[in-house]
């Protein structure tokens, strides 16, 4: 029974969410006590995920198993959630109650952690839903804001269609294998098997906001409350990459057309993401398109196939999530439009330099996390024989430098409008941004040990 410690992280998150809901009763007069409770729960969950190690509890008959990849993804999810909740506790929300928000964030993180360790199709499907359903509510959290609700509705509709595509593919897979365990998957060769794999992949692509399912992301990000966007755009994606990698690892040997689909989606995502980001004047919309492009880079690793590609993809997922969360938190403090970023270097030098560091990592300049991540991805793609695709991805990440530098130019070279005030930055919020910067540097420098900690096991 001692192997049940493996689900202690999830237990902490669930407990934290339930306690946070009653934060107003527990700590009267402290509006943001819920977020502090949530942050403590997330830190405890991270510690538990680190301490519990790896293995498969016998009680769950192979439906749930923690391997290296799952452990790394769970620790990363816990840390990012904790950082986000500390930021929330310090800054607070413009509208709505912090305790509800915290509970939703923790439920989503709980789903993400379960998803990373799921070894059963049904468990994975349920975990995916637990991770995304709170995200709809977070996106439409401000019920007085029509734009936020519209973005949330678009997010919901696309996400639901994606779930159903996934389920339709799953209905063939489960029917054909006669079992729900991922390890027992048996696709029949031929058209039906290929279609089933294509449906499953399409559902996963949509959840990752990769092309051709990217259109909801910019609208949802631009309309939703800043804090929701920061969480939804970064944190659940880490575990999503692990789940996607497992699906590809299981299906690719049985569906020869799968790598082609992934290559197509990767090319399309990189083109649409990087080119559509150029004309944007809203930073969150710009970051949404940049997220589409980064999903494209990830897919390069997954298309390469094999464990090397999957490991590189997860590493890149983390290397993307950290600076993405950081930039979104800065945008939540400073403002949404490029105009509000103007002259930030003079008004808040620390935030401006932190943003530069994180953008440089997103472009992929050494020695930061983004560079090592791309290096691993493209090495894996070369190893898988996808040389033209790697070259194309390198060219595209050079193209991406252009729109990231538009933010840098606004911060350093444009003078601010007269009436623009310096944004209020509490010490705690600055500390969280500094932590993201430290993580970006740390992941880049200590890339070797992190990559070798990521391992995918079949059982």
């Amino acid at each position, binding site marked *: 029974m001692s192997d049940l410690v493996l689900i202690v992280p999830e237990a902490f998150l669930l407990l934290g969410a339930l306690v946070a809901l009653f934060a107003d009763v527990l700590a009267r007069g402290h509006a943001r006590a819920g977020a502090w409770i949530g942050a403590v729960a997330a830190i405890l969950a991270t510690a538990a995920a680190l301490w519990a190690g790896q293995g498969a509890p016998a009680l769950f008959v192979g439906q749930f198993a923690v391997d290296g990849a799952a452990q790394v993804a769970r620790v990363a999810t816990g840390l990012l959630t904790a950082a986000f909740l500390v930021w929330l506790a310090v800054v607070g929300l413009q509208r709505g109650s912090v305790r509800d928000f915290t509970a939703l964030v923790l439920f989503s993180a709980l789903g993400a952690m379960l998803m990373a360790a799921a070894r059963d199709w049904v468990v994975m499907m349920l975990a995916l839903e637990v991770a995304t*359903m709170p995200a*709809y*509510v977070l996106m439409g959290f401000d019920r007085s804001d029509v734009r936020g609700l*519209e973005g949330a*509705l678009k997010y919901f509709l696309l996400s639901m269609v994606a779930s*159903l595509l996934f389920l339709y593919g799953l209905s063939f897979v489960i029917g054909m294998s*006669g079992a729900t365990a991922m390890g027992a998957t048996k696709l029949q060769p031929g058209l039906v098997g290929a279609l089933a794999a294509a449906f499953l992949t399409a559902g996963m692509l949509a959840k990752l906001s990769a092309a051709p399912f990217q259109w909801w992301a910019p609208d949802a990000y631009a309309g939703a409350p800043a804090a929701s966007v920061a969480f939804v755009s970064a944190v659940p994606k880490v575990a999503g990459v692990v789940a996607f990698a497992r699906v590809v690892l299981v299906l690719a040997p049985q569906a020869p057309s799968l790598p082609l689909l992934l290559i197509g989606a990767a090319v399309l995502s990189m083109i649409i993401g990087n080119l559509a980001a150029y004309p944007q004047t809203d930073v969150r919309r710009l970051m949404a398109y940049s997220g589409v492009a980064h999903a494209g880079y990830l897919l390069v690793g997954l298309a390469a196939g094999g464990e090397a590609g999957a490991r590189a993809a997860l590493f890149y997922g983390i290397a993307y999530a950290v600076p993405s969360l950081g930039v979104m938190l800065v945008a939540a403090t400073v403002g949404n439009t490029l105009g509000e970023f103007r002259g930030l270097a003079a008004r808040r030098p620390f935030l401006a330099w932190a943003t530069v560091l994180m953008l440089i990592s997103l472009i992929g300049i050494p020695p930061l996390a983004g560079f090592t991540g791309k290096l691993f991805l493209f090495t894996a793609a070369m190893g898988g024989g996808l040389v033209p695709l790697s070259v194309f991805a390198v060219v595209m990440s050079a193209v991406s430098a252009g729109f990231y530098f538009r933010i840098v130019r606004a911060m350093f070279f444009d003078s601010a409008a007269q009436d623009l005030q310096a944004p209020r930055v509490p010490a705690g919020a600055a500390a969280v941004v500094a932590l993201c910067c430290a993580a970006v540097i740390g992941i880049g420098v200590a890339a070797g040990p992190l990559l070798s900690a990521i391992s995918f096991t079949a059982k």
Partner: protein
Amino acid sequence: MTVGPVPFMALAAILFAIGLFGALSKKSAVMVLMSLELMTNAVNLNLVAVSRFVTPESMAGQFTAAFVMVVAAAEIGLGLALVLALYRKRRTVELDHIDELKG
């Protein structure tokens, strides 16, 4: 006369296609939600049919269908809540009129 798996799978495929078409083309948010329900039913029918005819010795498809129903009900409930919240603000459920966000 025995009926094979093909008619069931074909019906499920047709239902799924109608639902997908409706979800992508309908103007009213309520109609879109109904189309999504149709797709859910297609998924359940397919699960049960494939499972019954290809691997009848295990009940995997049948009990997965129960999970799918629960998930779909929860999702549609959330979607309806979003549509209602939007309706209170805009007095319309026509998706063409809900277009504050562009670009």
